[in-house]
């Protein structure tokens, strides 16, 4: 029994990181749900970006296996949304999640673009906070996600 709980402690956690990267491969938002050192992050981001950006063909699927991650990515205009998940996560659902994230940001920023995220990095993070906690989805309703953020905007 002890052995079992040991095994489960190292268990999968769903979403392990979310990246937003522009066409030039520059990171515009990075949120990790597991601990990596700065060097590891830089290396990982570099590798993933290189791999995903090389797959420019429309026909290619949205999943890339890298190290022990599976990267689900999708491009919206000049911005790549990349989500690193565990091996046994539902890839199609993550793809749907990325779309939900983009729709939510669209609703807030009005057709979100790279600059919106750069200059409102904290807002983008607050939105993510409302959507994902500890690698799991918290909320799927755009109204519910945005209401605390809009409330704060009104307060100021």
């Amino acid at each position, binding site marked *: 029994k002890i052995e079992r709980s040991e095994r489960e402690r190292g268990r999968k956690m769903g979403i392990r990181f979310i990246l937003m990267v522009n066409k030039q491969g520059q990171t515009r938002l990075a949120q990790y749900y597991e601990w990596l050192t700065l060097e590891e992050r830089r290396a990982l981001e570099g590798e993933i970006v290189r791999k995903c950006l090389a797959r420019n063909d429309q026909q290619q699927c949205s999943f890339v296996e890298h190290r022990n991650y599976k990267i689900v990515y999708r491009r919206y205009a000049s911005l790549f949304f990349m989500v690193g998940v565990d091996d046994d996560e539902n890839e199609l659902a993550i793809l*749907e999640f990325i779309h939900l994230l983009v729709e939510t940001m669209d609703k807030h920023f009005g057709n979100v673009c790279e600059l919106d995220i750069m200059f409102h990095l*904290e807002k983008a993070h607050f939105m993510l906070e409302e959507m994902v906690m500890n690698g799991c989805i918290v909320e799927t309703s755009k109204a519910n996600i945005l209401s605390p953020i809009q409330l704060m905007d009104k307060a100021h």
Partner: protein
Amino acid sequence: MNPFSSSTRLRDMIRSIRACKTAAEERGVVRKECADIRASINENDPHDRHRNLAKLMFIHMLGYPTHFGQMECLKLIASPGFPEKRIGYLGLMLLLDERQEVLMLVTNSLKQDLNHTNQYVVGLALCALGNICSAEMARDLAPEVERLIQFRDPNIRKKAALCSTRIVRKVPDLAENFINAASSLLKEKHHGVLITGVQLCYELCTINDEALEFFRKKCTEGLIKTLRDITNSAYQPEYDVAGITDPFLHIRLLKLLRVLGHGDADASDLMTDILAQVATKTESNKNAGNAVLYECVETIMAIEDTSSLRVLAINILGRFLSNRDNNIRYVALNMLMKAIAFDDQAVQRHRVTILECVKDPDASIRKRALELVSLLVNENNVKQLTKELIDYLEISDEDFKEDLSAKICSIVEKFSPEKIWYIDQMLKVLSEAGKFVKDDVWHALIVVISNASELHGYTVRALYKAVLTYSEQETLVRVAIWCIGEYGDLLVNNVGMLGIEDPITVTECDAVDVVEDAITRHNSDMTTKAMALVALLKLSSRCPSISERIKDVILKQKGSLLLEMQQRAIEFNSIVERHKNIRWSSLVERMPVLDEATFNVRRAGSLPASVSTMAKPSVSIPNGVAAAPLVDLLDLDSDDILAAPSSSSGADFLQDLLGVDLGSSSAQSGATPTPKAGTDLLLDILSIGTPSPAQNSTSAIDLLSTADMNNNSSTALDTLSSSAPPHIATTASAGGMFDLLDGLSPSPSKEATNGPAYPPIVAYESSSLKIEFTFSKPTGNPQTTNVEATFINISPNTFTDFVFQAAVPKFLQLHLDPASSNALPANGGKVTQNLRVTNSQHGKKSLVMRMRIGYKVNGKDVLEEGQINNFPRGL
């Protein structure tokens, strides 16, 4: 005041970073900003804090260190205003590392905020806790979180639920406290609460067996009803995705049902209907629907046998596989791998489609498909599948060849029906992708060739033909020159023609051409060149008519920049030149059949330096000319690449390739009156043409130590007769060899007379603990020492959680067996643990070890460290 909208300076910073043309420029801007932020932190003005932190977050995202801002996060969290807290918590989650002392400081603030009257503050604290909490924090704050699961506002309840998943993951003991709260969440209507509640239940089920039982009994029906309700629910604009109501919740529910149904027939029965409904009614023309279907299929395959459902699931996967959308095909391939486990036949039906996917332009699809194909192979379809894959290998992308060839090789090795087929397929792979093939694969091929005596002629001719066309494939070249060296005469004389072969005419010169080509090609690596040199030596005896030409080729290597090549070239040259008579002796004889079993054991990696292999080079002295250079050559690089186990095992194996040969040739020589010639030869070799005396002496010592260890093994063999037969055969000659070297070496080793016994030592002693080491050597393997460590508790307290750790320098390899126990009773309680140390510099360096011992006395951790320098010499 909002720090961001008003903070022009943050905007300025972002603008100036954006304006940077080069990375160096960016670094400059960031350095300057960081300096400003530090200065501002030192001034300790609360109004600048949020702006500083916002900047730091941006800088952190760019990948620069920001640790100096960590304390600012804590100050912001402790401040009363919501905006400050909000940015403080965000900074905490982004910037903080897992250094406990900093995290501990925040525990108190978190506790206060979890009890705050403003629910948004509570939400912030929950979110932060859910993302970063450590085990200690989890213990401290679990009661607060537990209470918040019942909070009136659903937005707090959902966050508390996810926060709990983190807490129970960090401290599984707390799981029981959350079971009731979690089950109450399953009755909620709010989607956010429901999805997080389901997640919490899932987490509890995987951590705690009682929880699993509880939810299975009490909640399965409720969950099925919830799933049915959302599946059948009317259009809800807020949650609708392409006609499906909240696919995320669908998927979470299906995941939880999977855990509940797995291993329980009753629960599985209950969910059959709803799964069938989801599988048949879900729209599959949009991604959201497919995501749900995909999850449903996985659940159907995981729960207990309901065969009609499984047919449904396999059909869905079949549809997925023929979908034009690559995403759908990818997940189909992924899932079919799991489906093989229960319905191989159904998956086999899709074999053709799957094979097509191996050839897909999309690398992700190819990779998945290749994995799947390798699972589909069996004795019946191996020939057809291998042919398809090899055909594709010829035209596949360069970067896919490595994966593809590795898979083909493993398939061929595993399922090959006959040797000739195996050899044929391997030759094809080596020809197409030889530069990607790993060492152990071509080593294995050589072992198989060596064992297939009736195919020697066929193989060497096939290799000869192949290498003419594919001379750039390094491993093909290696196998080819090895075979030409061994079986060159069969090549030239067309011995052992098979019916299927086209006769070819190869002159001796042609054969030498191939080898010469390999040795002179600029991109051949050292192993290849060394192998070519040995092959030339062997050819010189097989084909005496061209020995003059061979001599020329060897002589050219005297100018090689590689010292080893240079030296061997000189040695080999003198053998060819001066000892024509002995060329016919055992020196360059064909290798006897290599032992497949030994090789496979070694390849499996269970014995990195197995007993039998290490003894062999010692036996190999009559032929040491051939063995020593290769061993040396390989040693040279294997030292540098200890990290890569495959290549070092390759070195081992090559040692062995030659070693095996030498072992039995010396056994032969023991039976015939040749040993005299052998010793003469050896003396010659050691005296002739070695440019540096230093090297000469080291090689003498090497030989000596090997002879010495051989002596040990012979004494051990008296008592231990279960050892491999070659050993027994060799001991007779070993004695003679020892004598010979004894006379030759400047300092006869003393250990040899001591025999294999080493005195036990007290490795470590403190006021509470004593460690004793006793030593033994495995038969015939002088590099390895078995150490039995005895830990003795000399204190009046019992030690628990006892852990012994040891570290050794690079030239040693250490293997620790589990200890006999992890508790030492007071006053003389003992625990033993076996260690195995392999000394790659045996005879030159002594053992040395650093160790650390951890244990608990009365619940307190104790750590002791020490270095052991008093190992007996010569281990």
